[in-house]
Every structure is written in C-alpha cells, then in structure tokens.
C-alpha cells in the first residue's frame, strides 16, 4: 500500500469525512475510523461525507458522538488489519485497557452510547456496552435491576410476579 501517513494506518487513511451531530457540531475524522459504523460505511464508500457536505446524524448528540469517535479512532487500526491477527499481545492488552476505561462512565452517557452504537451499527462498541450493562445486572435482584436501569416503578402485577418468583425459586436468591 502506498500510505504516506505515519502511524498505524496502512489503509490509505488520509481520507477524511465530516459527521454532523444532532446539535449541528461538525466532526472531522478519518474515513477508516468512521467506517467502523456499518451504517456509515456504505455512504463513505459512495464518496459521501467529504468536502463541505458532511453526513448528518440526527439521532446522536455531540457529546455522545465525540465519545463514539474516540472509540472508533482507537479501534480503527486494529479493524483495518482484519481483526488484527498479527497484533501483538501488548496491542491487544492496550485495547482491552482502553475498553475497560472507556465504559467506566456515567450511566446516562452509557445509555446514549448504547443507542448510538445501535443506530450506527458499530459492532465492537455494541458488544462492549452490552457487556457493561450485563455486568451491572449480575447478582442483582429483579427490583435492583429495574432501579439500576431506570425502569419506572413496577405495577402491582409486576411486583406480585417478582415476589412469587422469589418465593418459588428461593435457591436463586440465596
């Protein structure tokens, strides 16, 4: 590859695209990073997002989008290597460390991230945030899960169902 750029990108990473958040902030990123999003990939392949155009993302606000792009930029080199089969253990450990830190965030940010990862179809990020929420669920009672995830108060019927479950399957609540 004739990639004049320095750094990890070996995929002609020079091309930049512009993404526009719901609150009209413009983000300029490498096409390779933005292409981690399945949703954006086709547009970018078609030549969209370059120049003054920009790709509008009406569902993602700027705070969330900058967080999402932080993830994409970090993961783009490994993704360009096709899942990085030749990545060193150090690289992988570094990505893992980054991921752990990345989801160590406020819950409201986490929820926006879940939705953004879903809408933009960024597979790695989707599973990262899903794993984070799943770990938050672990070991909690149904009521605690509801509270953790910001569910509305249970209806009497739901409350009765939870109580009956705890009564019938006491072993699952020890």
């Amino acid at each position, binding site marked *: 590859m004739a990639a004049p750029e320095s750094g990890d990108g070996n995929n002609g990473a020079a091309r930049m695209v512009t993404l526009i958040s719901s609150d009209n902030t413009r983000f300029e990123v490498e096409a390779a990073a933005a292409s981690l999003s399945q949703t954006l990939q086709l547009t970018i392949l078609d030549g969209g997002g370059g120049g003054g155009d920009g790709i509008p993302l009406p569902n993602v606000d700027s705070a969330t989008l900058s967080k999402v792009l932080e993830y994409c930029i970090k993961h783009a080199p490994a993704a360009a290597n096709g899942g990085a089969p030749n990545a060193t253990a150090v690289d992988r450990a570094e990505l893992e460390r980054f991921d752990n830190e990345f989801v160590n965030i406020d819950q409201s940010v986490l929820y926006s991230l879940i939705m953004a990862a*879903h809408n933009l179809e960024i597979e790695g990020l989707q*599973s990262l945030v899903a794993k984070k929420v799943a770990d938050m*669920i672990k*070991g909690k*009672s149904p009521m605690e*899960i*509801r509270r953790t995830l910001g569910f*509305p108060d249970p209806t009497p019927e739901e409350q009765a*169902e939870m109580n009956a479950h705890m009564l019938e399957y006491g072993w699952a609540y020890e």
Partner: protein
Amino acid sequence: MESSKCFDEERTRVSLLAISLFAPVSRSRLVISCWSGEMLQVKMDHELLPDDVVTDILERVPDSISLFRCSVVCKHWRRLVADPVFLRRRRWSESFSQSSLLGFFVQRHRTNFSAQRNISSSPNLSPAFVPASPGGDSVLGPGRRLLSSFVRDDARILDKAKPLAARGGLVLVRVAPRSSEKNNILRLSVCNLLTGRLERLPTLDASLLDEIGVRGYGLIAASDYNDDDDAARHHERLAHGYSTLFQVCQDGALAWHLTRFIQLNPGKWLSPVCVAENSGTVLALCRLNPEYAYVVDLQSGSATKMQGWTSSFNYRTAVPFEINWPMFFMSRLGVHI
C-alpha cells in the same frame, strides 16, 4: 430371593427400571398463559431500547442465575429470555456444553450399599450434595449440604435415603426401609430441588424385580415431550401423582463407545466413579486416598479437586446433578418448542 439383590450392580444381566414423572404444572406457567400480548414499555433513561439491544445485553449476562432473575424484571424481558432461539444461541458460561454439572448427591456410608443392614447402620442423614466446583460457582450454593435442606421433609423420609438418579432438577431417591418393614418393599421419592417439593411415589413390590436385579434408574419428565399435545394429554392423566412405572429389560452388556481415551492423571491414581454425560465430566476417586475426589473434564482431561468430599461417602451411591440451562429456562418460563 432377597431384596438386596435389586441394589446389586449386575454387569452381566441388564435391566432398566424407568420411572416416568409428570411434574405438576407449575404456578408460574399458569400465570404466563394468562398474560396478554401487550408490550411493556421498557424505559431506560427515557429511551426505548430496541429488542436486539436488550437481547445483546441478556446474552452477555454472565451467569444463569442472574439471567433467571432477569426473566422477572418485566414481561417484555421475560419474553426475550424465554425465546428458545435466544436460549440456544446464548453461550452458557458455566461450561462448553449447554449442560453444566452442579455437583453430586452421595450417601454417607463407609461400606457398600449392597446389603440391607448397611443402610440401617449408617447415620441418620439424608444424602449430601457436594458441589462440583470450588469457590461457589454452583447455583445450588458453594458448600456441601444435605438433600433435606433443599426440600421440605417434615417426615424425615430422606434420612438414610439412597440417591438413585437425577435429572432436570429432580432427584430420585430410595427411601430407607423401616425396621418393621419387609425387605421387599421398594419406596421411592422424588425431590424437586428447584421448587423445594418432595413427592412420594407409589410403593413397589421389589420382589417382582429380584429375578433380574435393577441395573439403573432413570427419570423422564414432562418436559421430555416435545409435542405440546402429547405433554398435555399425559398431564391430564397423571396430574395427581407419579403413576406410571414401567420396566424395560434388556439382555446384553451396556457398552460405552469411546471416541478417545482420557488419561486420568496417573500420579493421582484416579478411578472413575460415575459419568455426568451431559456436561461431559467424570467423578473420579483417588484410590490411595478416598478423601480426594476429582471432577475430570473429558474434553480437556483436566481434573478439579472437589471441596467437601470425605472418605465417609459411599462413592457407589454418587449421582451427578446436572442442569441443562436452555431446557430449564424453557420449562420454567413456559416455553414449548
């Protein structure tokens, strides 16, 4: 013919005693069928999470118990958890297979169980549950405990009972004969560990079985019926009690088909005791020191020392207790395939 013979593990002549069990419909199943189809709005910080996002999360809930609790968080989650496609696709972290070995039930006798008098000389204890994995991975608790701690046994019929078979959360035991009783009475009970119920089966005349001896016991539950109608039909007929008992006799030897040999660590002098076939594991005992028992994973050949095993256990009575998680969720959440 003495009735003790039915406990002998006769290798030459093979007969199988099968107990057919039709567990009563659980309350929760009835509740589900009453539910209407309306969808609960799952709000997460004022945003509606799409199904595949929730499924993504549920798929990654690390342990089965947490997932089981998720099924009552709300109706919508319940429907997602109860989806057979979801349950089959999910990676069950407990083991490579969908079944995981929780532990073994074993009776406490120093000598073997083949003679009646040994039953009466044993301590008045119900069989013990010994978890397979140390460190509290087992959903039935981290430590050794008595079978009677799982079920309500006011009459103490589990004292000195012998575990015979376990499947799908049910444990079949032989109740110890009373001293006043003739030897040829075979009294069986079923413990449902998941619901805490203890059910007595109709008494059997063991003298009928003496001729050939009993090679093994098995449990067939209502959930074994794939066909809804089939299960429902049997349900109606057998709702009250476990009334079907049949006996299958088979001549010839039971053969294990080995696909490869597993080398049990020779340094430990292990002898296999019983096979937990669904999870692909074997309970093995150290010949030099019966204090030590190991769970050997047939896939990897790795041996994990069991905590809580003592030499006072009669290893011949050991019965593996496994759970098939997809089946468990399907039966508990009222899903039919």
